[in-house]
């Protein structure tokens, strides 16, 4: 999936897969923060977005 998106010009850090058990609240929060930081560093996504104009 990551490769496909990269091929389409979407950065790897925009797709994230993880496995978290229902007891791992701390891990959940860590992963959210991690993804959020990475995506913020990349800025908004411009590729593939439907153009309404």
């Amino acid at each position: 999936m990551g490769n496909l998106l990269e091929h389409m010009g979407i950065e790897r850090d925009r797709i994230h897969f993880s496995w978290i058990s229902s007891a791992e609240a701390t891990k959940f929060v860590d992963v959210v923060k991690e993804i959020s930081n990475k995506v913020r560093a990349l800025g908004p996504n411009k590729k593939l977005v439907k153009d309404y104009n």
Partner: protein
Amino acid sequence: MNDKDIKIVSFLCNWCSYGAADLAGVSRMEYPADIRVIRIPCSGRMSPKFVLSAFREGADAVWVSG
């Protein structure tokens, strides 16, 4: 970049990560408000179509968690 501009479409398994998100709430942990959760019955329900469609609808990232 403004907080409002970030959207992470998150597909969470009902039995695993969705529960973790519930527990994070019970434990009052704070985290960025960028994620929008779509509850799925199992990560096996996930299809590449959903990922592409999320990007098409303007998602800045997609997160799939089992």
